[in-house]
């Protein structure tokens, strides 16, 4: 159970994804935010109005995936490090995951790293495409290319050292 293990169920993850039609149109953000806590910086972070204003600061984010372009500003701004941006159309064989990563050493573009799932287990390899810096939040966002099958599994990387 998520409240005991902090690992979401498959069903929980799928509920968070936009519909299949939207997913093949291009990059989108996934909010793995399943508990009501007082927090709203994702709304402030979004330039496109895709994260609706909060009527109650405790509500879960309401996302309009038609407005979202997967830019990953919210990925670096979320205090809970709970947002990821996904591009299932990245290439024929690969999908792109933009994930928040606050460990050192940071990987560099081109580096092959371990692709870890939500329990920290290695499930394959990934290739770092880019490390995006955000001056305000100081949370780097790693762009990771993985096999398409792994795109909803991989949520962390092992660079050597932790992970």
């Amino acid at each position: 159970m998520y409240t005991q293990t902090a690992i979401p169920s498959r069903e929980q993850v799928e509920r968070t994804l936009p519909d299949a039609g939207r997913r093949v149109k291009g990059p989108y953000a996934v909010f793995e935010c399943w508990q009501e806590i007082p927090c709203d910086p994702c709304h402030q972070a979004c330039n496109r109005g895709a994260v609706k204003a909060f009527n109650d600061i405790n509500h879960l984010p309401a996302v309009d995936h038609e407005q979202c372009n997967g830019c990953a500003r919210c990925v670096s701004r979320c205090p809970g490090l709970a947002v990821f941006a996904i591009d299932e159309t990245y290439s024929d064989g690969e999908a792109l995951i933009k994930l928040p990563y606050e460990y050192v050493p940071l990987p560099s573009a081109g580096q092959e790293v371990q692709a870890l799932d939500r329990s920290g287990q290695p499930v394959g390899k990934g290739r770092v495409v880019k490390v995006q810096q955000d001056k305000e939040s100081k949370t780097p966002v790693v762009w990771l290319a993985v096999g398409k099958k792994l795109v909803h599994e991989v949520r962390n990387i092992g660079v050597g050292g932790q992970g």
Partner: protein
Amino acid sequence: MRQTELAVIGGGPAGLAAALAAAEAGVRVTIVEQDDRLGGQLVKQTHKFFGSEKQSAGRRGIVIAAEQARAAATNKNIDVMLEAAALGYYDDGVLTVEQGDRFIKLKAGSYLFATGASEKMLAFPNNDLPGVYGAGAVQTLMNVHGVKPADTVVMVGAGNIGLIVSYQLMQAGVKVAAIVEAAPTIGGYLVHAAKVRRAGVPIFTGHTVKEAHGTDVVSGVTIAALDQTGATLAGTEKMITCDCICLAVGLSPLAELLWHAGCRMVHIPELGGHVAWRNENLETSVPGIFIAGDVAGIEEASSAMVEGRLAGLAAAAYLGHGSQFDSLKAELVAELGALRSGPAGAKIRQGLAALAGM
């Protein structure tokens, strides 16, 4: 004897917010801080804060601490006393302070206690071995002094402090072998828990520490599952090798000076134990004595900062600088209400409801 209008005891998030709000209202403020810098626990909080923009959400505690400390240090209405420990509060309304080798008597027109909280201990065999730390000490070593506290840690407590300190330990290159939590579910924010879980840290809910191992220092820990009655279940023991057992098992309000001052004290478990009774302006039963932050009830730093502003403005009004108090108060009460209105605020709401009935 030193004189000031408002003495703020404790220069953490609540005290700093209080001092700045009162100073802005025109009050002469003296902050009495026992540490060698302002900021309290904020100086160790390298993670981004929750809340809304008004409470600096998305920004890191260390950044907020630096800004608030600078604002206090450059405010001409604020005097800051560092490495100054408040020792006692006397019947004639005098606060005694030890600073270096000096004993100072401070007389203020109003007092605001923002003394925070202390960590709870956990009873288990060998808990006096070197290597058994409080989470606050681990954070101080790592994030204030740049000292790696251990190689492998077992964290006890999956509240926000246990989860955040686990994350910070991993960022410092320390292995976190496990997080052990006696409650049946994770108490802290699940996004924090998910963050450490995807870095490979197992979380054992419904488990406790059975005993620590080691002769001179900690060399490991045995944990065990708990049954419905809270007793350990035979056959569920797991031995984990580690050189540090880090305790994050809760906080108690540091309310001794409020007992000294004769404030009416009430015991409310949801607020962390004994707290001073107070009204909506955070004024205790002793007129002119205000409280804010963890000493008033264990809560998040974002609420502590809002409480600090409210109590600071209320103290300013008490001292005759309250022309705008009513409108500002309404705004701050609404902010606190919003922060506490969700499921995560249930405990504090229960505690405050109990307090209101006393």
